[in-house]
């Protein structure tokens, strides 16, 4: 590896390998659709099955990892010193691909954990103290998740005496579902278990964050869908309501915390929590409708879930890639140090803008589509008139709408502060232009975003087979036929193609009109700043200033802390220097995780003092005390 010429070889090789294997898996899963095969070992039979759900996820994973691999062919050159990145990321993606086609619990668990291990190794890749903390928290949480999933599988095994998923249909009772869903929620970063996510996703290299945020968290959704819609014994609809409420809380708090961030990747990571919450809401509605036998509602909510998985995956991975480029070419991810990047990275900023619009659900892009389906299914569940569901879905609508608006604010902040205005520091001033391959990697998912947003009918009819597999029904995607078969669906109509077409036509007309009939004179001038120092970029609104007023209103979510330190002995009105410190705490972390950790340390202290005495007399004392206790048990209890 001393030879610089050969340094890139790992990068090229493994990225191409990823692309090839993504293609291979896609072809394989289409070709082998509905077939299964078994790899035998002396002990475990690795069995694989290609059903509609796994086909969907294989295509999803492989397409997004394809884009990311294209992106990292060039982007990865800053990691050539330590090529383990490319090996791990290849294995990471492969293990996810195998995960979704596995058909027995051991295979599932093995690849589930392989996925976690490789992603963990990628999180700690940078080797800094920060990445260690993040990596440990991540690995701990995901380990807890795996253990819960394992417990769920063990209980399923005890119920069915089989490893194979084929026998698990309709076997999972409420405890099993609760264990599994809790386990998977940890991976998905749902609210009480989300603490790891905002630490782990930002510290990984950007292409890995893109995979983790865009793809890996969705593996948890895969597991939940499998458990709730395939394995569930279908007993308790209240579980659906719980998922709905938890999802809604995640969505709201996730985006609220996102708004408070300064680090671009951290903001995106919190937004992942929000989107997972939205997916959970859909799952909750769908599951509830399944148990309560509201068929069309079930299909519709499922469509919302699947669409949102795709949409979030596409836009989030492209945004993470974009943030990687910002990091790479400006050497900072702190948006307070950026600004005006649009001038330096024009094409990237257009791509980023579309990604931002997509993720904050702006019509007519894809993000809005899935959120629209979710709204419709929430309204549908209000129509069911069920005593509990009505009120919970109203709450969910309220939280979702608040989250939607807050999402707009958060991403306006992200885009506006980063790309617009004047460069705030030299980092932004000296930004370089990104490489074309990198931009292609971002452009492809963005194009897909636009495509799905504007013309979703094909993808919905494709998703219908997945919906059919999970729920036994389909949703009609036809924009102009008010179909009677699905009651909820005919309730309202959103025809994105028409809207987009009219939008474009009107835009062109207006542009043309104003070009012709309005003055076209232009003058470029310095921005007016009340005649004061016009060139000072510090006069601009800062990112934290942007979000502070919203944060002040919702201060109960943040448990934030801010103070202004003035230098003391200066004049009252003309202070030379003041320091503003602001600290935003995650309430879940502050009130649950940190106290729990402290409690653990306290108990450990006690144990360590009591049980691990260095004194040999005490140790011997324990020995004989045990003996005497055993004797007493022997005398008085055993007969």
């Amino acid at each position, binding site marked *: 590896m001393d030879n610089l010429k050969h340094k890139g070889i790992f990068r090229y090789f493994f990225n191409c390998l990823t692309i090839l294997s993504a293609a291979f898996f896609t072809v394989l899963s289409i070709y082998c659709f509905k077939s299964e095969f078994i790899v035998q070992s002396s002990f475990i039979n690795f069995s694989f099955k290609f059903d509609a759900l796994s086909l969907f996820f294989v295509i999803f994973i492989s397409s997004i990892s394809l884009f990311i691999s294209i992106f990292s062919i060039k982007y990865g050159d800053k990691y050539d010193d330590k090529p383990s990145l490319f090996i791990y990321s290849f294995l990471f993606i492969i293990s996810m691909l195998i995960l979704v086609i596995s058909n027995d619990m051991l295979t599932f668990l093995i690849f589930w954990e392989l996925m976690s291990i490789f992603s963990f190794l990628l999180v700690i890749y940078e080797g800094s103290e920060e990445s260690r903390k993040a990596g440990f928290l991540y690995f701990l949480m995901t380990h807890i998740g795996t253990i819960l999933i394992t417990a769920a599988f063990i209980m399923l095994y005890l119920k069915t005496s089989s490893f194979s998923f084929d026998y698990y249909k309709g076997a999972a009772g409420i405890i099993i579902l609760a264990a599994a869903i809790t386990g998977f929620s940890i991976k998905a970063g749902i609210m009480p278990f989300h603490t790891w996510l905002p630490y782990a996703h930002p510290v990984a290299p950007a292409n890995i964050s893109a995979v983790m945020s865009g793809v890996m968290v969705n593996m948890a959704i895969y597991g939940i869908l499998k458990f709730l819609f395939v394995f569930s014994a279908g007993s308790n609809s209240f579980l659906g309501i719980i998922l709905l409420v938890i999802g809604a809380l995640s969505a709201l708090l996730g985006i609220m915390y996102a708004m408070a961030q300064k680090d671009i990747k951290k903001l995106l990571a919190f937004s992942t929590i929000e989107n997972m919450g939205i997916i959970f809401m859909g799952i909750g509605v769908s599951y509830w409708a399944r148990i309560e036998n509201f068929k069309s509602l079930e299909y519709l909510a499922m469509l919302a879930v699947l669409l949102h998985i795709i949409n979030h995956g596409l836009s989030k991975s492209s945004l993470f890639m974009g943030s990687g480029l910002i990091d790479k070419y400006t050497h900072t991810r702190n948006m307070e140090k950026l600004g005006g990047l649009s001038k330096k990275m024009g094409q990237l900023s257009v791509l980023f803008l579309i990604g931002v619009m997509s993720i904050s659900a702006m019509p007519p892009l894809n993000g809005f589509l899935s959120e629209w389906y979710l709204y419709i299914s929430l309204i549908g569940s209000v129509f069911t008139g069920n005593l509990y569901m009505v009120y919970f879905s109203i709450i969910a609508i309220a939280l979702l709408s608040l989250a939607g608006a807050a999402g707009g604010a958060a991403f306006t902040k992200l885009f506006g502060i980063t790309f617009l205005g004047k460069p705030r520091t030299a980092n932004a001033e000296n930004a370089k232009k990104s490489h074309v391959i990198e931009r292609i990697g971002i452009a492809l998912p963005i194009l897909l975003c636009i495509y799905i947003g504007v013309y979703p009918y094909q993808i919905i009819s494709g998703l219908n087979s997945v919906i059919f597999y999970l729920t036994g029904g389909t949703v009609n995607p036809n924009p102009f036929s008010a179909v009677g078969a699905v009651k909820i669906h005919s309730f309202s109509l959103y025809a994105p193609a028409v809207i987009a077409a009219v939008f474009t036509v009107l835009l062109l007309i207006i542009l043309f009109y104003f070009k012709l009939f309005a003055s076209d004179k232009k003058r470029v001038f310095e921005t007016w700043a009340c005649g004061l120092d016009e060139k000072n970029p510090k006069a601009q609104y800062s990112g934290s200033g942007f979000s502070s007023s919203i944060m002040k209103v919702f201060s109960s979510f943040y448990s934030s802390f801010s103070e202004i330190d003035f230098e003391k002995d200066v004049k009252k009105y003309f202070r030379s220097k003041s320091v503003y410190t602001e600290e935003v705490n995650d309430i879940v972390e502050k009130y649950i995780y940190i106290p729990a950790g402290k409690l653990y340390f306290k108990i450990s202290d006690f144990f360590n003092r009591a049980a691990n005495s260095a004194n*040999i007399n005490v140790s*011997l004392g324990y*020995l004989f005390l045990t*003996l*005497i206790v055993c004797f007493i048990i022997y*005398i008085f209890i055993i007969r």
Partner: protein
Amino acid sequence: MIMEKIAELFIILILVSVVLNVSSPFIKFAIKLYSFQSLMLAFYILMGAVHFNSVNLYGSFVITIIFKVILIPYFLFKTLKKVKMDKEIDMYIGIPEAVVFAGSLTLLSNLIAQKIVKTGITFGSFVFTISLATFLIGAMLMITRKTLFSQIIGFLTIDNAIFLAANSITHGMPLLVEIGILFDLFVSILILSLLILNLRRNVAA
């Protein structure tokens, strides 16, 4: 029958010696007591041997005399001389309390023994009680005393208790096993002495 009654005397003497050990804070005296206790044990085994006319038990008697009465106390004295540690032993609890404890441990042993031992199994009545009591009191010696030597003495007392139990059945344990056990015991005492020496040296240095 007369042998059994005499043997009971020796058994009682074993218990007495261990209680005396509890009540005394001197190491040299403790080693001497241990030697005496082993002698009583040997005599008990001899009584059994005479009573049953068992070659096995005669063998046991001989090796007990050799190892426990002579060799081990000898090495202990030698080590003691080398480390020059001839003072009163520090204890965690006072002697009167310790003696009361010893009494209650005897009570506990009696409870256990009553539960399992039917008459006629052992040579001499209440052997099992005494053996268990000696065992537990030996353990107490190890726990309550701060010096390393007392731990060795306690350990050896425990060993004697087990030996007593092992030889209380008609013909005792198989001789081969007993030799193995005693050899192990001997080696462990050697190693412990070595360790005491090393530890003293380390502390001094």
